[in-house]
Each structure stands twice: as C-alpha cells, then as structure tokens.
C-alpha cells in the first residue's frame, strides 16, 4: 500500500469502524479526530517529498478498472494538488473540533460524514482521470448536503441545502455532456491523453462554456452565486469552514487543472468574459458585504469578492497571476475558515449571528478579539498575511495582461478594508451590549488550539511564502506552456 492509498483510505476506514464498533460518544469523537488527523502528516510528507523540478505526476498509482479495455484510473500528486490535499487534511480535523461540544444529535453520523468528506476531497485532488474527477466532484456534495440539512441552525436550512445541491447539479449536467463529447472524440478520460489531444476551436468554445458553468457555480462567480450565502448562513460552523476553505476551491482547481490546459484557444477567447464577470463579482460583492447584518453572510459575500480576484489571476495568462491565484486559494482557505470559526465561537456562546446584538467584546473577550482582528486584517489583505501575497500577485499578473481590469479590481482593496473593519468594529468595539452578559467566556483551550495553527500558517505564508511558491512553479509553468 502506498502513502497515497493510506491517505485516501484512512478516513474511509475510520468512518466505517465508527459505524460498526460501538464506542462511547467521547471515544467516537476522539477516534474521528485521530482518523481525520492522521492523513495530515502523511500529506505533509508527501508534499515536502515532491521533486520540485519534476513536472510529471509523482507517487503515481494506477488501477485498471475494466480489465482489457486499456482504461486506467491514475492517482498521483503534483505541486498543484499537494497543498490542497494538505489543506483538506488540515481543515477537516478543525471542523470536527469546531463541532466538538455543539453537536448533540446524531454525533456518529456527523463524524462519519466529516470523514467521508475528507476522503472524497483528498481523492478528488489526487485523481488524474476526468471521469473519476467528475464523480468525486459530485460526490462531495452528498456529505455537505446532509450536514447542512441535518445540523444546520434554522428551518431554512432545508431550502439552503436544496439550493446548494440544485445549483451545483445544474452546472454539472453541462459538464457531464461535455465529458461525453470529450470521450466521443478522445476515447479516454486519462489526463495525459487529454492533454495530448487537440480539440477544434468550435468544440473548445462549447466545452469551455460547459466546464465554466460547472466550475463557475462551484467557485462561485457572480450571477450564479446565490446558493453560497444561503448555504453558509444555514450550515453549522464546520460546514461553513469546509465550504469556504475547500469546496469553493474545487472550482478554482478545476479551472487550473482542466480548463486552462485542455481548452487553450477557448481560454484566450473567453478571457475578457471571465475578467468582466470577476470584476463584477469583486465590486458587487464588496458593496453588498458592506450592508449585511448577518455575520456569516458578510463573510460569505466577502468570499465571493476574493474569489473574483482568484479568477482574475487564473485568467491573467502569466506565471505571476497563476501563482498568485494558487497562493490566494490557500490563503483564503485558511483565513475565511478562521473567520467562520470566530463566528462559530460567538454563536456557540450567544446563539445569534446578527451584528447588532454584539458590541464591545474587546473588553470581555480580549483573546477572541485579537484573533478576530487578525483574521479581519488578513481578510483585507494586509501585507504580511497569506492573502496579501496572493492578491498582490493576482493583481500584478492581471496588470501585465489587462491593466484596466486590474485598476478596477484594486478598488476592491478599499471596500475590503471597509467591510472587514466595519464588521470587526461592530463586534469588538463600542459599548457592551446586553448579550455579552449572558455568558462571559474568552476562548477556551480547544478553541485556542483551533486558531493557533491557522494564525501560524497565515503569517508563515505571508512572510516566507517561498516554500509554497517554489513548489508551484513547475506545474503552473506547464499549465501556462500548454494553455497560453
């Protein structure tokens, strides 16, 4: 058994054992936590052990699915997928910790769905077969659907879960059709084969649009983003964390992995469209965020704005933009989970997410306020945080190819400061509101250790991003070489 198989199978096995062995509730939680945590060091070792200069897949495993048909499913890692795998393995235990005390009903099922989600996400990032990618891409919906539908906070959660499912499925239908078309031409879903094959321009335009719809809904781009605020607001803390941290990034990963190399001419053709939509997203979401009164909704809209920057970087057509988008994907995958965890901390204590009930928490919860401040300023892209490195590179990449777009997008910098600090000031500054007298408790040890690694990673990538960036060079240069 190779490392990669252990990485993927371990969460599945753990979840299975949770179902069949009768543990007490506390034991279950511990088992699930360790089950989610064990893949983290493995993924880190795999990431560190990658050969920087090698552009091919590494740690490859092949399975023949149908013997004799010459169709093989390839699993592997490269510099692009390894950080995302590590991020998944890092966030899932955090999510389990986030629901440690709050989840009272259906604990086993909750833990099982987390472990399943982790396994599926690791698999989706390591697979190099388009069909398997598609199946897993869809399969990740199931655990998150269940999670929102069952452990969400209000009755509206059912609506939110439906919206999440239907929106994603709507895009995926087109992707499925595109997959059929690709198979009709190429006869294989293997990544290497796909890369080597050429599609005619008309076909590329069609295929690009259908992929774009699927990934654009997932990431989400602006006219098709409605499911995101709904889902975030209704999901339990852990659900929001994984949604913002990983599931949105699936779209970006899809763009980088499949759309750019496969449909290179179509990418050039559609770049103005994508830039427009991204700009729209940045400006529109930034202004909308300014007026949200639900904390989670505010963070959800700000995610849309940041994702606009990511797509701007992906479609900038140069290395700076691509590296920037990857770093921003990682940075946002650490910072917005941090923010959602902060909101979760408040919700656990005071059972409300409306901003107007809060105020003056800096006086009673100084540690919490410091952490919240840290993530707020990371969210607005202050230099020294991971988000800055990403945003800066995205913007400067975009500036090289289309400087008017970059100039407009930069105005998002102003509004991001406005909404992040507005939210922070409302919650932590000002006079104490009555809600804070219900319970005065700063972060406890569990919560502190949830936040500490997030803070550490944000700063580390912000000050010394070289280890992350240098691994991205080779795979992204290949994509660039193939794509543009």
């Amino acid at each position, binding site marked *: 058994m190779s490392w990669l198989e252990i990485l993927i199978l371990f969460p599945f096995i753990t979840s299975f054992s949770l179902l069949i062995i009768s543990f007490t509730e506390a034991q279950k939680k511990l088992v699930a936590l360790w089950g989610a945590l064990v893949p983290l060091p493995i993924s880190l070792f795999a990431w560190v052990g990658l050969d920087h200069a090698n552009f091919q897949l590494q740690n490859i495993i092949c399975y023949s699915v149908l013997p004799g048909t010459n169709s093989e499913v390839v699993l592997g890692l490269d510099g692009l997928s390894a950080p995302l795998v590590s991020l998944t393995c890092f966030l899932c235990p955090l999510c389990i910790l986030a629901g440690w005390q709050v989840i009272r009903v259906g604990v086993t099922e909750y833990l099982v769905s987390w472990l399943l989600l982790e396994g599926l996400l690791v698999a989706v990032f390591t697979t190099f077969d388009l069909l398997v990618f598609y199946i897993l891409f869809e399969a990740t919906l199931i655990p998150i659907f269940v999670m929102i539908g069952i452990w969400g906070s209000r009755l509206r959660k059912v609506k939110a879960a439906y919206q999440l499912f239907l929106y994603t499925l709507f895009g995926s239908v087109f992707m499925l059709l595109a997959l059929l078309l690709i198979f009709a031409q190429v006869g294989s879903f293997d990544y290497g084969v796909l890369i080597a094959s050429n599609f005619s321009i008309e076909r590329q335009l069609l295929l690009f649009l259908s992929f774009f719809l699927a990934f654009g809904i997932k990431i989400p781009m602006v006219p098709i983003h409605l499911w995101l605020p709904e889902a975030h607001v209704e999901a339990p803390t852990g659900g929001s964390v994984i949604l913002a941290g990983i599931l949105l990034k699936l779209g970006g990963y899809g763009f980088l992995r499949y759309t750019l190399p496969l449909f290179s001419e179509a990418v050039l053709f559609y770049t103005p469209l994508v830039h427009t939509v991204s700009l729209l997203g940045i400006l529109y979401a930034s*202004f*909308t965020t300014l007026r949200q009164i639900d904390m989670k909704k505010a963070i959800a809209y700000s995610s849309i704005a940041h994702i606009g920057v990511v797509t701007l970087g992906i479609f900038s057509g140069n290395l700076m933009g691509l590296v920037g988008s990857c770093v921003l994907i990682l940075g946002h995958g650490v910072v917005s989970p941090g923010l959602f965890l902060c909101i979760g901390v408040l919700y656990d204590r005071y059972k409300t997410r409306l901003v107007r009930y809060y105020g003056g928490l800096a006086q009673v919860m100084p540690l919490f306020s410091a952490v919240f401040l840290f993530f707020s300023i990371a969210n607005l892209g202050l230099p020294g945080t991971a988000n800055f490195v990403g945003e800066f590179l995205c913007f400067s990449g975009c*500036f090289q190819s289309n*400087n008017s777009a970059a100039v407009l997008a930069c105005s998002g*910098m102003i509004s991001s400061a*406005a909404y992040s600090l507005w939210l922070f*000031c409302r919650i932590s*500054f000002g006079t104490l509101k009555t809600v804070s007298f219900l319970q005065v408790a700063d972060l406890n040890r569990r919560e502190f250790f949830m936040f500490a690694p997030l803070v550490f990673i944000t700063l580390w990538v912000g000050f010394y*991003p070289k280890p992350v960036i240098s691994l991205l060079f080779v795979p992204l240069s290949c994509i660039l070489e193939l794509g543009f």
Partner: protein
Amino acid sequence: MYLCLFLFPFFGFLVSGSFGRLFGKQGAAFIATFCVCCSCLCSFVAFYEVGLTSCPVTLSLFPWICVDVVESFWSISVDSLTAVMLVVITTISSLVHVYSISYIKDDPFLARFISYLSLFTFLMLSLVLADNYLQLFFGWEGVGLASFLLISFWSSRLQACKAATKAIIINRVGDVGLALALFCFILIFGSVEYSTIFSCSSKVAFCTFLFCQFKVDILSCIGVLLLIGASGKSAQIGLHTWLPDAIEGPTPVSALIHAATMVTAGVFVLARSSPILEFSPVVLFFVSLVGAFTAFFAATTGLVQNDLKRVIAYSTCSQLGYMVFASGLSQYALGVFHLSNHAFFKALLFLGAGCIIHAIKDEQDLRRIGGLAYLLPFTYSFILVGSLALVGFPFLTGFYSKDAILEFSLSNFSVTGGLCHWFGVISALFTSFYSFRLLVLGFLGYPNGFKSFYKNCHEAPLFIAVSLIPLGLGSLFIGFFCRELFLGAGTPFWANSIFIYPVRESIIEAECAPVILKQIPLFFTVMGAAVSFSFIYHNPIITYRFLFFNQMFRVFYTFLNQRWLFDRVYNESFAKAFLFFGHAISFRIVDKGALEILGPFGIVFIFPGLSKQLISLQSGRVYHNVLFIVYGLGFLLCSPLFYSSNGCFFLISVGCWIVFRVF
C-alpha cells in the same frame, strides 16, 4: 547592530503584547520602552556611520515574494535619507513611550497600548529601512493598521471607532495608488527594487505606455500614482479628512503617529522616489500644487477650530503641505529637513496639549479653558517654545527649514514657484495667527473652565516632564545645528539618496535672493501674531460682535469651521451612495430580486404549475389515449425526417402546434 535596531521594537511588542500578564502592566511598559530606547541608541550610531561617515549599509535577510521577474527580499538598507528618518522615528518614539507610561498609567490596558506603540515603531522602521517598494508597502500598510489600533484604543467610544475606520479607509485609497505604482514598476522595470528602478528610470524617461487604454508617459503615470499614495498617508488635500479626526486617539498617539512619523511617510516616499519624479515635470508641478493648496487650506481651517488638538492637527496638515511642495520644487532635502524639525516641535506641541488635557480633567475645548499660564508654567513654557518654533520665530528650529522653503520657492523663477511662495507666505500668516490664538485662549485669556478643574489642576508628573525636555531642546536648537549639514551649498551628506536634476538645483539663487524678499515671511508672521493678540486677547468683544452681526463674515466663518465641507461632500456623495447601492440595488434588487426570480424562486414558482398541466394530460379517458397513440405513431413515422433539416423544422413546428393545442 542594524538588525537590533530593526528588531528591538518588535521584541518589545511581542513581550508586552503577549506576556503583559506576567510582567504586570508597568513592567511590560518598561520593557517595551527599554527596547525602543536601545533601538534609538542604535539609530544614533547608524546616523553617525551612514550619515556622517558616508558608509551606506545593506543587509538582505531572507526572500519574500520571488515569482517570475519579481524578486523581493526582507532587507535592511540604510542610506542618508533613511538615517535621518531613523533618528527622528526612534527618538520621538522612545520619548512618547516614556510619556505614555505616565499618561496612560491608570488604564488597565497600558501593556496593550505600549505594545501597539512598539508595533508601530517596528512597522515604521521597516518602511524606511526597505530596499524595495514591496517592503515599503508592507510598512506603509502596517503603519495604517497600527494607527487604526491606536486611534481606536479607547474602543468603547463611538467617535474613536469611527475615526479609526475612517483613517484606514481613506489611507487605503492612497494605498491603492501606491499599489498601482508597484504594478507599474513590475510591468515596466520588471523589478521592485530601488536600485534597479532608479538606475533605469532615466532610460524610460518620456516613453509612453498604455494605462487603462490611455497612452500616457510612463514616469508621469507612476509619479501621479505615487503622489496619490503620498497624499493618503501625508494627508494632502482631498485625502486629508482622516487626520483631524485621528485626534480621537490618546494624545501620545497623536504626537507620535499623526504629527511626527507616520504622516511624514508620504514625504519620505516622494524624497525616496526623486529619481522618478525628477524626470517628469508634470508630476513635479502637481506635487507642488497639491502641497501648496494643502498648506493654505489647512491653515485657513485651523484658524477657527475650537478643539485644542484639532488646531494642532490642522497645523500638522498645513506643515505637511510645506514639505510636499518643497519636494515638488525639487528641494527634497529641504522637505526632509522640515520633516525632522517639524517632528520635534509638533510632538512637543501635542505632548504639551496632552499635559493640559491631563491637568484639567480631559477638557480640550479652547473656549472652556484659559488662564493656565499661571497654573502650568512648565507646560506653558514648552508650548510657547513649540509654537514659536512652528511659526518660524528667527533662530528657532522652524525658522531654518520653513523660511528656507519659502526662500527656495521664491528663487525657483517659475509660475509654480511663485504660486507656492505666496501660498506659503499667506499660510505662514495664518499659522502664526492660530498658534497665538491657541496660546491666548489656552494660557493667557480669562479662565473659562469650571472652578473644580482649576482647583485640581496639577503640573506634569516626572515621566511626562522628562520626555518633554529633550523635545523642547530639540525645538530650540536642532535647526541651527543641522542646517549646514542638510542644506549647506554642496553638502555631501545626502550622497546618492536624493537625486536632483541639475537644472533644478537652485541653491545659489536662494542664497542670493534680495534680503527684503527674504524677510516677507517674518513680517507676515509678526503680523499674524499681532492680529491674534489684538483681536482675541485685547478686544474679544469686538471680534464676537463682528462675527455675530456681519452676515458675510459668518458664512465665511462657518465654511472654514466646517472644514471646507470636505467631510460632508464625501459622506453624502460617496459613502451614502455606496451604502445605498450595497443594500437597495445590489442586495435587494439584484440578489434578492432578479437573480432570485431567475433562480430558485422562479423554479419554485413555475414548476408546480407546469407539472399540474402535465398531470391534466393523464386524464385516463380513452379518446385522450387514442389521440396520443396517433401522435406517437405520427412521430415515429416522421422520425427519418429528423436527419434532414427541413423535416426537423417541420417536426418542431408540429410539436409546437401540439403544445399550444394541449395547453
């Protein structure tokens, strides 16, 4: 040693910020202060090594962002310009640290306050020590954050939060300018390092590129973007509105950040970027124009403000205008000289104002204090020294830089020079008026406060006094000591750190200007003081009567008092519009309206009706079934027609017809 200089304040921040509980708040404060004082000592040594013995130093620490052509390192680079800034920053910072130990001593969050101050010092050092624009940007944004934290230190006050948010948002507008300049550097020069950019700037002078689809001169474009950045930080007209509000923070903060150090970052960047600005006359013209207008505007506004600290804040804004227009006239050294002098006397004024506020129960409205000269002679003497230095009283610190700026602008022999000169001179008149108005209302006039305030009035305690004395001495003598070093004809001090296009060097003209013209500023200053004394001190009744009965004058007064209505215009035309858009349009109409109807809501609305109608087809009646059998048969028979385009069209029209019949 340079590394220590850089990292000591950071260490102080970490210790007092994280372990304040272990050392107690006084202990944490002392540790942080000690760290900053060490850093101050180091910076004096650095000034000697780099400035006086001309040995620039560069240390590269570790890589930061290295992608594609961008190579930026965390680094420490000290040249003469940086050395001057280092001395100013660390000196003022350590004095303010000492001052704060006593000033904030009753606050339970003293350790937090001191740690923020140290953090600010560290970030400001990383700004001036950078050897590339990216690290400069780090410090640039970082000091904005530190200023946010410090302004909102008394966080339960709504005004403080509002002022802090306003400061960071308006600063951010400037930051976008600087960020765009950075992107231009990467695009044009393929680098963010000073050395590369400055050595190549002459090569791209007067070349054009496409910026936002407009063909513009490269260096002018970059220069204007840098100017926008500098305006944000240095509170130049248009982006100045945050500075007067920033007085909501504790007074030591105003002294350190909003008078002496952070607001001068813009001037520093202009001086630093001299090799770029010098190749673009357009930008220099803009810079001097912006500076001159700011000096004038802020001075007029300062005339009629009633808040003690607000008067000083507007005076800061005005003096920053002087520095900026000096830079615009290519006299960067002069700008930096005024910067360092200004740091001393303005910090002194703010800290003195802090003493007053401390002494009389946090009252800072000029109309409700007065007669304090007899109760607080020590504070009075320091504020007097600061004010005299500010107005440019001969042979005090301000005189050597401010009058020099006016002289140089006179000897520039251009329209801009003349414009700047006269704006500067008139501003000097106003400066003198409001400085003496402050002294008169606060110290000499009739005591207007409550009796209990005066009864409990006390002179500055030890730490506060200790920190005032060096500043007072500095305000008296720094200008005299450093004039020849910084400004003397042919001084080698600045070495390569400042570049002036040889044509624009005007030291000889300035030295040879007619003496009578050189004395104009002094004349105006004395006039301002005289007017101030006669109207505010001797005949206040006449002044108020005039104010009360003269309609024209009152409109004018209100306009100035409302700060030229800048805030109102910004609030009503920008902030309100954006907030309206964010809720009514983007959220209500688009998100919850159009998109919802096209998306989930529409589906929920349409599909039940659609399915009902489809259900009605399944009626179970025989003739319906027969009809559908016939349709189905027809469809099957026609199916070969699919393959021809005409047949396809035929089938579609038949299908449409059926659909219309059925529904």
